[in-house]
C-alpha cells in the first residue's frame, strides 16, 4: 500500500467528528490529485457542505457518491482528475472511514 493510502486509512483512527474527518480527507485528496475537493453530506437533493474547498473558485466537474448504510456522502471535484482518480479503490476506504466516525 502506498503512503497515500496509508495516510488515508490512518485518518479514520484520528480524533474529532465526521466534519473534522471530511476536512482532513478533502485536504489529503486535494494534495494527492492536485484538484479542489469538497465533501458534502447528501439529504435527498441537497448536498450539504461538510469539509474541503467549499468550491469558492470553481464548479464541480465530477461528483462521486458513497453510502455508509445510514448516511450518504458526496465528493465534488474540480477540475475532473479523470482516470487518475482511483475512485473504486478510494470508495471503500471512505465508507470505512466515515462509518468509524458515525459509529
Amino acid at each position, binding site marked *: 500500500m502506498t503512503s497515500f493510502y496509508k495516510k488515508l486509512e490512518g485518518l479514520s483512527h484520528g480524533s474529532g467528528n465526521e466534519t473534522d474527518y471530511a476536512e482532513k480527507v478533502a485536504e489529503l485528496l486535494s494534495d494527492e490529485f492536485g484538484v479542489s475537493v*469538497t465533501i*458534502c453530506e447528501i*439529504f*435527498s*437533493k*441537497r*448536498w*450539504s*457542505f*461538510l469539509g474541503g474547498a*467549499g*468550491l*469558492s*473558485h*470553481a*464548479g*464541480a*466537474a465530477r461528483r462521486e457518491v458513497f453510502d455508509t448504510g445510514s448516511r450518504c456522502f458526496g465528493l*465534488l471535484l474540480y*477540475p475532473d482528475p479523470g482516470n487518475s482518480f482511483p475512485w473504486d479503490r478510494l470508495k471503500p476506504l471512505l465508507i470505512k472511514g466515515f462509518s468509524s466516525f458515525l459509529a
Partner: protein
Amino acid sequence: MGKMSVKDWADNVVKEEEIDRYLENGKDFIDHDAIERHLDNNKKPDKIKVRDIIQKSLSIERLDPDETAALLHVEDPELWQEMAAAGLEVKRKVYDNRIVIFAPLYCSNLCVNNCLYCGFRKDNTHEIRRVLTPDEVRMEAESLVKMGHKRLIVVYGEHPSSDADYMAETIKAIYEVREKTRKGTGTIRRVNINAAPLSVDDFKKLWKAGIGTYQVFQETYHRPTYKKMHPVGPKSDYRWRLYTHHRAMEAGIDDVAIGALFGLYHWRYDVMGLLYHAMELEKRFDGVGPHTVSFPRLMPADNAPYSEHTDHLVSDEEFKKLVTVLRLSIPYTGMIVTAREKPDLRKEVIKLGCTQTDASTRIGLGAYSEQYDRQDKERQQFVLGDTRELDDVVRELAQMGMISSFCTAGYRCGRTGDKIMGLLKCGTEGKFCKLNAVLTFREWLDDFSSPETQKIGEELIRKEIGEIRKDAFFRNNPLLKEFEEYYQRVSEGERDLFL
C-alpha cells in the same frame, strides 16, 4: 399526534427553553426604543450623507440602523431615483440580471391560529378546509413540473395534521415526481418550505428530507400590533416566532428566509425590524444573514375583516420605497416579490433589485391539478394580484433584458449558509448564477416555451453567452470551457447539468 387533542397539541407547540437560550440578558434582539430612536434621529438626511450611504451599499456592505433610517426618510424625488438605480446595480453585482422563478404549493389550510388578517384563521367558517394527501401533493407537483417549474415554496397551515412528519412526507413525494418533457425529463429540484415555527428536533426532520430554504415571516416586528393581530394559538408567542430561524440554523438548515407582512404596522418600522433580524442572524451565525427577504403587502382575504380595515395599508409609492431601502440595506440577500402584486407594479419592483418571483401562481388547495377557478376566495389565504402563466412572465422578463433562472445548483453543491454568503458578498456567486441561469433557461425554452417566448428567449440567450465569453472573470477560467460543453449537452437534450 396519537390521541392528543388539537387544543393540547397547540398548547404544547411552544418550547420555552428553545427561546430562552437565544435571549441576551432576558431580552430579544428587537429593541423597540432603539428602532424609534433611529427613526426619530434621521428624519431629514442631507444629500451628501444619503449619497455616502448609497456608495456603502454599492460596495455590498450591509447598512447599519441609522443609515437605513436615513434612507427611509428621504423625500427628494431625485435622490429616490438615485437610490432605485443603485438598488438595481447592487442586485446586478451580486446576482447579475437573473430572476429566479418559483411557484407556491399549498398543502394544507387547517390552522390552530386566528390571525385577524388571514383567510386560513381557525374562526373563518367560510374557508373550505383540506389537507392534501401525499398522492394529491404529488399530483400538484406533476402539474407544476409540466409547466416547467423546478423550484417550489411549499406552504402549510399550523395544525397537527400538517406537522413536521407530514411535511417531510410531502417533500419526499414532490422529489419523486418525474415528468416527460419535449426534450427531456422534468423534476422539482428544490423544495423550500414556508411553515409555522418548529422545534429544533422537528427542523431536523425537514433537514433530513432535503429541504432547501426554510421561510417564515414575523408579520410585524411591532409587539403591540403583533399581539393584537395574533390573539390565540402558538403564533401568539412573538418570541417563539422571532427565534425560529435560529432553531432552523441550529438544526442544520443554513438557508433561512425572513419577511414582514406590510400593512399591519408602519412600513418604516417593519423595514427596521427586518434589518435588525438580518443583523442578529449575521451576529449569531458567523456572518450568515437571511438567504432571502420577503415583503408581502396585506391583501384582502375572505372573511378576515382586518385585511380591509387597517390604518397602515402601504401605497404603491411607499411599497416601492420600502423595497428600494431593503435592497440597499441588506445588499447580499435575495429579495422576493410575489404574485400578490399586480403585473405592472411587480414589473416596476423587479427593476428595484428583486431576485426572485413566482409565476403561474395558484394558492388554493389542489388548484394546480384540479384546475378550478384561478381565484377561489374560499380556498385561498388571500387574493392574488397576478395569475399570469409562467410563459407570459418569462417573456416579460426577457423583454426587460432579464433572464429567468430555474437554477437550483447552490444547494446541490454545498453552496449554502456561510459558503454561499461569502460568494455573494464578493460577487462570485453572481458568476455561477449567470452560467446556471443560461443552462436552465436553455432547458426551459426547449421544453416548455411558446413560439413567441422562444423567439425573444433565443435573442436573450445569445446576448448572455456573448457577455459570458467577454467577461474577464471567465476568459482564462476553465469554467468557460466546461460551461460551453454543458450548454451543448443541454441543447442536445441532456438535463440537470449545473456548475
